[in-house]
């Protein structure tokens, strides 16, 4: 079965409707944030260092959501924040996919004690919180978006590697792999031709979930002051800065969180929709 078959095979109509609603809502939510991020590349309502609005101005009056404690326009910061969030998600997932898939495929070929050791090693790595790994990376480098993305990507590559290892092992036990091997197909060709096409639906769904987790992790790091340095307005840092004025100027302490939740829910819904479309095993169960 090729991936194209998985995509085009028509599911039952009733199920399909439920599924496309999930996907559509997810794409709309995540797309909204992505749009904000794209627009922020070419246009912003105010300059990021424009403090002319006065401190903690209430929403309205030239500032859609008001200003922060330094007088910067909140909506402008939200827009740059969405760019940073999308960058963090994409960057981390790219690193996690690259390292995780490579490691996972290699680990899947291991046997006996080496296999046990690799599995245990991945388990321990996974239990090690992303944030603490990130602190180590930031201590080794510096507090930049790059460090944060690198750390999150590295931590997630362990999760991806474990998943890929299990998936590949399952495929390698299949008869068609044995058939391919006996007919003289080389290992690299077997992996490219049989293994990867069979694991990718599950992999893509997991990577979508990792995207959401990466966005959350970046926000957490920025909240702790370990993310992108000023004047880059990461949502996490915006929240941290607005924490002291939560009761007097709630917009600054609520808006970044709301956008964050919208983005992560959107991406998770996309993952759910994709899972139901791509993975025949769970078809019809998660309606």
């Amino acid at each position: 079965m090729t991936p194209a078959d998985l995509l085009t095979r028509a599911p039952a109509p009733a199920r399909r409707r439920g599924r496309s609603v999930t996907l559509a809502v997810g794409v709309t939510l995540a797309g909204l944030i992505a749009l904000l991020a794209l627009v922020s590349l070419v246009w912003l309502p105010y300059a990021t260092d424009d403090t002319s609005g006065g401190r903690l101005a209430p929403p309205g009056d030239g500032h859609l959501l008001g200003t922060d404690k330094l007088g910067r326009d909140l909506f402008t910061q939200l827009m740059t924040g969405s760019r940073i969030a999308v960058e963090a998600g994409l960057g981390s997932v790219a690193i996690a996919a690259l390292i995780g898939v490579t490691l996972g495929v290699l680990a899947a070929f291991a046997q006996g004690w080496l296999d046990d050791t690799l599995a245990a090693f991945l388990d321990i790595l996974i239990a090690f919180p992303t944030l603490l790994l990130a602190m180590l990376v930031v201590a080794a480098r510096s507090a930049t978006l790059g460090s944060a993305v690198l750390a999150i990507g590295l931590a997630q590559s362990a999760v991806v590697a474990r998943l890929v290892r299990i998936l590949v092992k399952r495929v390698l036990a299949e008869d068609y792999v044995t058939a391919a091997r006996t007919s003289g197909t080389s290992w690299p060709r077997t992996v490219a031709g049989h293994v990867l096409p069979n694991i990718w639906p599950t992999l893509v769904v997991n990577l979508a979930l990792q995207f959401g987790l990466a966005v959350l992790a970046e926000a957490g790091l920025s909240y702790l002051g370990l993310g992108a340095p000023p004047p880059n307005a990461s949502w996490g840092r915006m929240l941290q800065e607005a924490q002291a004025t939560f009761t007097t100027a709630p917009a600054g302490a609520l808006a970044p969180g709301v956008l964050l939740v919208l983005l992560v829910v959107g991406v998770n819904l996309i993952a759910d929709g994709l899972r139901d479309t791509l993975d025949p095993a769970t078809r019809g169960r998660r309606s």
Partner: protein
Amino acid sequence: MGRYLLRRLAFLLVSLALASVVLFVLLRLLPGDPANALTSVGASPEQIAAARHAIGSDRPLPEQFTHWLGQLATGDLGTSFVSSLPVGPEVAARLNVTVPLTLAAFVLAVVIAVPVGFVAARRRHTWYGALLSGISQLGMAVPVFWLGMILIAVFALGAGWLPSGGFPQDGWAAPADAVRSLVLPVLTIALVMSASLIRYVRSAALEVLDSDFLRTARALGASFPAAMWRHGLRNASVPVISVLGIELASTLLGAVVVESVYALPGLGSLLATGIAQHDYPVVQGVLFVSTLAVLLIGFVADLAQRIVDPRLRARLSGGAR
């Protein structure tokens, strides 16, 4: 079972030994010299060398490693480079905050997630089943620190019922104050944790609800609660137990953000300052203790799974999984 226990214990010890080597080497690979943190800016090379000698970081790595192992064997986690205080008691003091915080949050999360996840699965075609799934979906997307901020704004700053942060100076000597200062942090972690647990419980319950064995039991005349109790619960708890183990382990150190929101002196914040100050003994001590905890939790989770699921016991290879 006895043989399995021995194998599993041996595996635990080997993992711990490997992990301590990896920990030690990784920390030495980090750039930055702890001696710089000890001396004032513009210290002469001699002063820096003296500082290195004092903390032993000028000695060859294998010697440092065996020295550390020797200390560990006697239950000594070393002495902090920065504060010159022994690491062991400091870690123990932090555990007094982190362990109750983590365990209480964990128990509360399970108490919330198991019934909610089950109802979400059993009533998945009703509006409230869908609502419960939706709430869990939403909860998984909420950053833990933001939830903390909101809870503080509502219950501490707004209603004034609970402290907005901090932990009593004398710790558990003032039990009522200690408990009061942990209520909001526990709630914060538990709510976020239960959101993802609900999903796991729900899918494990779905697996069981759709199973042939449950249908057979019902066809043979067992009532739904009886069939669930006798066949469903055990089968559904196997995958959930391993998720619980991972969640508990990662919360132990992952509580650092919540500790930061509520200004709690926990293990995570000790590690964070340790890393920032290149204080190897502190970082090593915290990571060693938490690795031990992670391995022990995995051990208990494995045992629990085997007790619940006899099929795992029958399997010949009783290795890591």
